[in-house]
C-alpha cells in the first residue's frame, strides 16, 4: 500500500460510523453467502449407524439410507423427531440455526387446532343455549356472546393458514409468507442474489465504462463526439420502461428471463454512467507531464491509459462504487416488485415487498422487508460516505 492509500485508510478507519457500517455489512454478507449453513431444510450433520453424513453439501441422500421407507430425499425435521424418539440407538442429527430453506413450505398440523375449534364452539354454544332457555336474559347478551364466540373461533381458525406471525417455538423468527415460506430465510437468500447482482453489474459496468470513457477522453476528436451523442441518446431513455419493454420482447420470442439475462439487460443500458466521469478525468490527466513523458519514452496508448492514467483516477472509481451498488439493489428490487424481474420462485426482495403489500393484514411481512432494505441501504451509503470523505482531495491538501 502506498502512503497515500495508507493515509486514506487511516482516515476511513477514524470514521466510526463508516467503520461500524462496514463491519455489519460484511457480517451480513458473509452470513448470506453461507445461507445454506444457516438457513436450510437439510441437516448439517447426520450420524446414523456409526456413519457420518453431511446432507447440506452432499448429493440428495435417499431417505432409505436413514431407515425411512421413502425413496426421495429425507425430510430431516421428521427424521430428527424419529431419532429423538429412540435415543438408545445413538443416532443424532444437527439442523441449521433456522431449519428452513427459502423454498421449503411449512405444513401446519391442523388436527389440534380443529380439536380446539370444536371445544371452543361447544363451550360457547352451551352457554348460548342456556341463555336462550332463560326467559330473563336479554337479546344483547346473547348477541354479545355470539360475537365473542365468532372472534374466538376466528382467532383459532387463522392459525390454520399461512401467513403465520413470528414465533420462537416454530423457529419462524420473522413469520411466514402466504405460501408458508420462512421470511428470514427468504431475506437472506434474497440478499445474496441482490448483492451478487449488484457486484457483478458493478464490475461489468466499470470495465465497459472505463474502456469507453478513457478512450473518449484520450483519443478525443470524432470518436469522442460520436460516443458523446450515442450516450446522450441512450441515457435519455427512461430506464425502467425500456427494461420492461426489452423483457417483454424477449419473452414473446420464447426466451425466459433469468439472472444472467437481467444482468445483460441492465448492463446494456447501465454502462453509460461511468463514461462521463472517466472521460473528464482522462482528459484532465492527458495533459499532465507524466503522460507526455510516458509517450516520449515510447509507451503505447493502451499502456498509457491503463498503466499511467488509470491509477491516478482510481479514487473516482472507488467513491462511486457503494452508491452504484445501492442503486443496483434498488433497481432489481423495483423490477421484481413490478413482476418483470427474476423468475417467480427465486427468493427476491422485490417479490417480498409485493407479497407484503398484498397481505397488509399480515404486517410482519412488509415490516421485515422494509426494515431489512432500509438497514442494508443505510449501511452501504454510510460506507460510501466514509470512502468519499477519505478520498476527498481537499482534506489532503489542507493542513489538519
Amino acid at each position, binding site marked *: 500500500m502506498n502512503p497515500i492509500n495508507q493515509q486514506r485508510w487511516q482516515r476511513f478507519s477514524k470514521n466510526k460510523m463508516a467503520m461500524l457500517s462496514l463491519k455489519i455489512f460484511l457480517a451480513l454478507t458473509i452470513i448470506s453467502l453461507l445461507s445454506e449453513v444457516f438457513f436450510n431444510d437439510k441437516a448439517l450433520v447426520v450420524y446414523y449407524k456409526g456413519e457420518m453424513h453431511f446432507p447440506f453439501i452432499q*448429493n*440428495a441422500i*435417499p431417505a432409505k439410507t436413514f431407515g425411512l421407507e421413502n*425413496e*426421495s*430425499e429425507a425430510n430431516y425435521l421428521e427424521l430428527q423427531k424419529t431419532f429423538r424418539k429412540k435415543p438408545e440407538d445413538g443416532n443424532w442429527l444437527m439442523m441449521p440455526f433456522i431449519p428452513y430453506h427459502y*423454498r*421449503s*413450505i411449512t*405444513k*401446519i398440523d391442523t388436527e389440534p387446532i380443529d380439536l380446539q375449534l370444536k371445544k371452543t364452539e361447544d363451550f360457547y354454544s352451551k352457554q348460548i343455549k342456556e341463555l336462550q332457555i332463560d326467559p330473563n336474559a336479554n*337479546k*344483547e347478551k346473547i*348477541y354479545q356472546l355470539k*360475537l365473542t364466540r*365468532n*372472534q374466538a373461533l*376466528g382467532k383459532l*381458525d*387463522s392459525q390454520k*393458514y*399461512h401467513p403465520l406471525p413470528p414465533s420462537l417455538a416454530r423457529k419462524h423468527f420473522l413469520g411466514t409468507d*402466504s*405460501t*408458508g*415460506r420462512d421470511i428470514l430465510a427468504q431475506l437472506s437468500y434474497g440478499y445474496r442474489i441482490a448483492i451478487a447482482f449488484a457486484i457483478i453489474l458493478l464490475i461489468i459496468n466499470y470495465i465497459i465504462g472505463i474502456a469507453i470513457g478513457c478512450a473518449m477522453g484520450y483519443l478525443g476528436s470524432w470518436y469522442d463526439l460520436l460516443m458523446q451523442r450515442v450516450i446522450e441518446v441512450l441515457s435519455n431513455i427512461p430506464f425502467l420502461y425500456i427494461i420492461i419493454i426489452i*423483457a*417483454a420482447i424477449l*419473452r*414473446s420470442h*420464447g426466451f*425466459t*428471463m433469468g439472472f444472467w439475462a437481467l444482468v445483460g439487460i441492465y448492463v446494456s443500458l447501465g454502462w453509460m454512467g461511468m463514461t462521463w466521469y472517466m472521460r473528464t478525468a482522462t482528459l484532465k490527466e492527458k495533459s499532465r507531464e507524466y503522460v507526455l513523458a510516458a509517450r516520449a519514452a515510447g509507451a503505447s496508448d493502451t499502456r498509457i491509459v491503463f498503466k499511467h492514467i488509470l491509477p491516478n483516477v482510481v479514487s473516482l472509481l472507488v467513491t462511486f462504487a457503494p452508491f452504484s451498488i445501492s442503486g443496483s439493489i434498488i433497481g432489481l428490487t423495483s423490477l421484481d416488485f413490478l*413482476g*418483470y424481474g427474476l*423468475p*417467480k*420462485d427465486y427468493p427476491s426482495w422485490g417479490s417480498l415487498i*409485493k407479497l407484503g403489500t*398484498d*397481505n*397488509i*393484514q*399480515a404486517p410482519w411481512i412488509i415490516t421485515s422487508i422494509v426494515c431489512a432494505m432500509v438497514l442494508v441501504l443505510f449501511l452501504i451509503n454510510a460506507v460510501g460516505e466514509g470512502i468519499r470523505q477519505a478520498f476527498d482531495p481537499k482534506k489532503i491538501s489542507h493542513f489538519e
Partner: protein
Amino acid sequence: MKKYLTVVGFLFFASILTIILLAARKNTFLRETRENISIADIKRPKPFPICDEQWPTDLVWHNGMDQDIFSDPKATKGGTWNTSLTSFPPNFRQVGPDSNSGFRGAMDDNDLGLVDVHPVTQKLIPALAKEWAISKDRTIVYFKIDPDAKWDDGMPVIADDFIFRLKAMRSPGIVAPWYNQYYSTMVSDILKFDKHKIAVKLPSPMADTVLKAAMRPLPYHYYGELREIRKKYPLSRAISYLKRDNKEVPPNILKIKDEYESSVTSAKEGEKTPKEPSVEITVEDVEANWVKNHNWKIQPRTGPYNISSFIKGKEVTFERNKNWWAKDKKYYKNRYNVDQIRYTVIRDTNLAFEKFKLGQLDQFALLLPNYWHSKAKYLDPVDRGYMQKLWFYTQKPEGSSQISFNLDHPRLKDKNLRLGIIYALNIQNMLDTVLYGDYERSETFHEGYGEYSHPTLKARRFNPQKAIEYFNKAGYTKIARDGVRINDKGEILSFKILYAAPFHTQRILALQNEAKKLGLHLELDNFDTTAVFKAMLNKEHEIAWHGWGAGLRPQYRGQFHQSFAHKKQNNNLSNLDDDEVSQMIDEYRFALDTPTRVELAHKIEERLFELAPAVPTYKVPYFRQGLWRWVKYPPFIATPSNDMIMDAYGLFWIDVELQKEIRAKMTKKEIIYDIPPLIKNTRYKGAP
C-alpha cells in the same frame, strides 16, 4: 406598495376560490348527458323488402309461459346501486376496435334478445319474441316479435331492426372481423314477413336451434340506412360474400378465379404457391367513419337500463327506463328495481374494498380466499349488524381451469411421463393450504353443465407410488445431485410451467414443493399477461396453467380437435391429435338431439381422461360477497345462475328507508341485533 400587495392578495385568494369552486362542481360541468330526442323528430329509414316466401301454417308454436317466475313480488323500486369499474371503458360501442372491455357486459345485459334462458330450469322464455317455432328440417326458426316491444326512445322494435343487425354486422365499416365472419357463416339470412314476423335461417341444422337463431336487434332508425361501397377482398372471401348476399359472381372475377386456380395446380412442388389475388366487390356498409362517430354515442336499448350520463374517466350512470315495455311481463315483473346504477372507476381492488367498508359501494366480491378468510374476517360493519356476508353455491357452467401438456414437446409425448407428472401434482394439498380449502377439485373439463357433465369420472389424484412407477416407466430412474430425477440420456425431469396471473404463483409454488419430493422439478415461468397468452397460443409452452371461460354447452372442438393441432394461434394448447376424439367431436358438433350429444360428451371426456393431454384443476361453484343490509333479496336468495346478488338478473332491490336508518345508526355506532351476519346457502351444492 400596499395597493399592489392588496391587488396581488385579492387575485391570489380569488383564484384559489375559483379552483375550489370548480373542483366542487366538476360533477356538473364535466358530466355529459344523453340527448333526448322526441319521437316526432326521428326520421324513419326506408324499410327492408318483404320476402317472397309464405308464412308456414303447420308450425308448432312455443311461448315458454309455463315456467315459474323467479322474482320476488315484495321488491320495491328506487335507490341507487353503487358499483365499481377497474378502468373506464375506451368507448361505448359494443363492436369494433377496443370494444371488448369489461364494461361491454353492462351494456350487453340491457340488450334483450329474441328469447331468454330461464335461470333455474334453463328452458327458453320469451323476451323480444312472443312466440317461436322451428321448421321441420331445423334450419329455420320463426319468431313473432312482441308488438309491445319498444326501444327506450319510444320507437317500436320491428323486423327491420333484426335485418339491420345482420347487415351491419356483416359490413366492413364496423371494423370487427370476428363479427363479419360469425354473421356470414353462422346465420345465412333473415326473412321479413311483416313488421312483427321474421324467420332466421341457419346454414345447417344445429343443436339448441332457437338459441343459435335468437339474435339481438340493432336500432335501424337510429343508425340509419346502409350505403353501398366498393371494397377489396381476397378472392375466396369475396366470392363467399357475394354468395352470402345472393349476388351473381361477375365474369371478370370468375376469370381471375380460374387463372388463380390453374396457377395453384401448375405450381411445382417446393415452389411458393402464388399469392391469392384481391378483387373489388360491392358490399353494403354502415355510415362512413362509423367507428369514430359512435365512440361516445349512446344507442337506444330494449332493456331496462341505459346510460343516462357519464364523466369521462370517472363514472358512468345507468338510469332505469320508467316506461320500460316489459316491466309488467311475466318474467320481467319485479325485477330491475333500482332507479340508478352508478359505475365509478376505482383502479385498485384494495381501495375498492376500503370504499365498500365505508358504505360507498353496496357489495363486494369476497371470492378470493385471502379476502374471505383474512381481510374480511372481522369487519366492523358485519359485527355491528350493518353488513352481511353471503356464501351462495350456484349451479352454472364452470369455467375450466386446467394444466395442459404440450404434446409436441419431444419428451411430453410420452404418456407415461405425463401420467407420472399428473400423479405427482398434489392439487388437493394446494387447495387445502394456499386456497384455505375453499376451492373444489375439478373432475372433468366441463363441470356444471347439467347432464352434459360426466357424472362418475374422477380426475387422477396425487399418488406418490404411482408417480414414481410411471417416472420409472418413462426412463427417469436415477436421482441427480439436487434430488431431481434424470434418465439415461442425462435429461433432467424438469419442465417449465407457464402461467399468466401473478397471484397464482403461490398455488404453483405449493405444487412445485410437493413435486420436488418425488424428483420432479417445475420451473415457474410467468410474465406479463398478454405476452403469456400469446406464448400459449403460439404453443411455446411446455406445460401451461390456464383456464377457459364457460359457455352454454361444453365446447370441445377448439380445445381438442386435431384440425388445430401443431398450428399456431388456436386454443388446442396440448396439440392433441387423436382421430377418435376428433371424430367424436365432429359427431357431437352436428348431433341434434340432446341424449346423443350427452352420450358423446361423456365419451369424449372418458377418452380425454385416458389420453391425459391435460388435467383439470379446480372449480369455484359458488359466489361469496359482502353486502350492506339495505340491499334486499328474495327469500330464495338467488338463482343457480346468479353471478352475485346484485347482478344482471336484477332480482335485488334497495330499501331506501333502511339505508337512511342504517347510515344514521352508523354515525352513532348503534348495534343492530338478531340478524345473521353470515349466510351460507348450499341448496345448489353438488351435482344436480
